């Protein structure tokens, strides 16, 4: 198993092995699931209460389906760990974080200084993505963040 290199959570990491999306529903004691690019993350929505870890696999960093999977889970209120796994490189870290990922297990270790720079690169953002950041339009017009950010 690939090591988690960056984690933005205070709770204990879940040690359970992740099972596939199509078997998760039947394994009533499973708490961790692995989402592949072709999986429909919405199949997990009935089980959010027992889900503690979702690994989203990026077999190729150019396949962006995992970004949508992450947002769908966060938009549905999933508050557990959301881990990007696989072909994760420094230049994707900031975008992944914006889509709701809060832990990262890259195939190849990323230079920690580069990663820190990447996570902190953008002082502001144009879009509301449910990551708790106030978009530029909200700052321009004094709006409070009113997306359904469930993670406080």
């Amino acid at each position, binding site marked *: 198993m690939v090591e988690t290199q960056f984690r933005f959570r205070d709770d204990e990491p879940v040690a359970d092995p992740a099972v596939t999306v199509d078997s998760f529903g039947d394994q009533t004691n499973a708490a961790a699931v692995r989402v592949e*690019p072709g999986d*429909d993350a919405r199949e997990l929505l009935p089980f959010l209460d027992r889900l503690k870890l979702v690994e989203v696999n990026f077999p190729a*960093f*150019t*396949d*962006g*389906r995992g*970004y*949508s999977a992450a*947002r769908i889970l966060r*938009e549905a209120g999933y508050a557990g760990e959301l881990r990007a796994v696989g072909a994760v*490189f420094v*230049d994707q870290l*900031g*975008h*992944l974080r*914006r*889509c709701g990922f809060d832990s990262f297990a890259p195939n190849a270790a990323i*230079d920690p200084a*580069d990663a820190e*720079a990447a996570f902190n*690169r*953008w*002082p*502001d*953002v*144009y*879009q*509301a*993505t*449910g990551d708790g950041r106030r*978009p*530029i*339009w909200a*700052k*321009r*017009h004094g*709006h409070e*963040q*009113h*997306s*359904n950010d469930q993670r406080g």
Partner: protein
Amino acid sequence: MYKYDQYDQAMVDTRVEEFRDQVRRRIDGTLAEEQFRPLRLQNGLYLQLHAYMLRVAVPYGTLNSTQMRMLGDIADKYDRGYGHFTTRQNIQYNWIKLEETPDILADLATVEMHAIQTSGNCIRNISSDQYAGASADELVDPRPYAELLRQWSSFHPEFLSLPRKFKVAVIASATDRAAMRLHDIGIEIVKNDAGEIGAAFYAGGGMGRTPMIAPLINPFVPIDQLITYSEACLRVYNRYGRRDNKYKARIKILVHELGKDEYVRQVDEEFAHLLTQGIEPPLAELERIKPFFADPAFEAGASDDLDRSDPDFALWVDRNCHAHKQPGYIIATVSLKPVGGIPGDASADQIRLMADLARDYSFDELRVTHAQNIVFPHVRKADLHTLWQKLDAAGLSTANLDQIGDIIACPGLDYCSLANARSIPVAQKISERFTPAKSDEIGELKLKISGCINACGHHHAGHIGILGVDKKGIENYQLLLGGCEGADTSLGQITGPGFSEDGIVDAVEKATEVYLANKQGEERFLDTYRRIGMAPFKEAIYG
């Protein structure tokens, strides 16, 4: 003209620093080319046959004179004294050094410009009507909506690794001058029966090897849901667009394979969900943007008189100028298609001259058209002759707009690593074949040339289209007839076997002869073709 505030400026400045860091890592070897490639593409940087090419964004084709002057200066400082205006209303430079690109981006950022998402599998620079804000036939100025979409699409974290590139056009006129229905998403700003402004969405158009005309997927999205609906369209595409074959990865294939109704159903479901997510900017943001596009201070009661005593000037007015919504003003287009020239090219000096002329005679504004020309949108008729004289002295007074010499051509095999055949020499030979008198006799004829099936030269949408292919190592050119962009969009049909470089020029000439022999009344080439069909053309060309 939109003006950056501190947030917009910080976004482009941050991008410059991000890209500087990426280039540094690429040069010192920590970033492999495979990982660098999508990053540089999303900054408009291609590796072409001879050098890097940098494509600079001109959002919705609108520029001020300071920006235009900078484009000329960049051509001198970092390129070989030329820039090439593109069919996406952008400009590209063909002889760029990788290590200098961060400095170019830094220079651009000083005039509120960038190269963000001018390439790559992401939402590209948004195009629009080149006569926006000047034409009498528009409902509203489409550019505030395009600017709202520009901000939404810039660095949208969910949509930076789409199955394929994604092109959006926004118009607000029934006369479509932006080939809107040949885009991944085409948006027409419309008014409903209640008098409210909204957006009609078309999805799944495009050219490339499988050209498709976008069907209407929603006749009226309320304007305060524009971003949310766009996001729903993109999310369905990001999740379900094909990724197994890059030639089937555009949204047009998804819409085609699912069927329009099923795509619409999925978008509607996602839309209903996203409406609960609070992702739409408040209407106040649109209202903040709108005044930037307010009319300039037109002179009330400006004279509508034009002194047409100079015949060359009168000809140019008739060919290259369009009616303006404001009495006493006119829209003037500079053709970047001189006989024997490279379509869309301009020298650094010409670019700077156009900047000065825009400052002096067009309220500081210019537009780039998707036909690779430059527009002065707001010229006082009293100044038009002076403007023309200054253009003429710089070789910029070619009077051939929308005629056979006003050719759209991709860079082709002279520059592009994807091309199968050269486009530029064919364009040059065609423009040399037809005299101005003959071109006048033929009238409106949109001729478009692509050097490969990716169709960057829009050959599917040409009244006459030419597609360069590679036939056993020899460049071969196929002829298409009957394509058209705009409100009556149609796709060209191939006439038959292809031609050599000289043969294609002869075939084009024969096609124009068939038109002239069969033309009735005021028919354009396209009208005659639609009436009499392919057969007479085929007979003349191959008979």
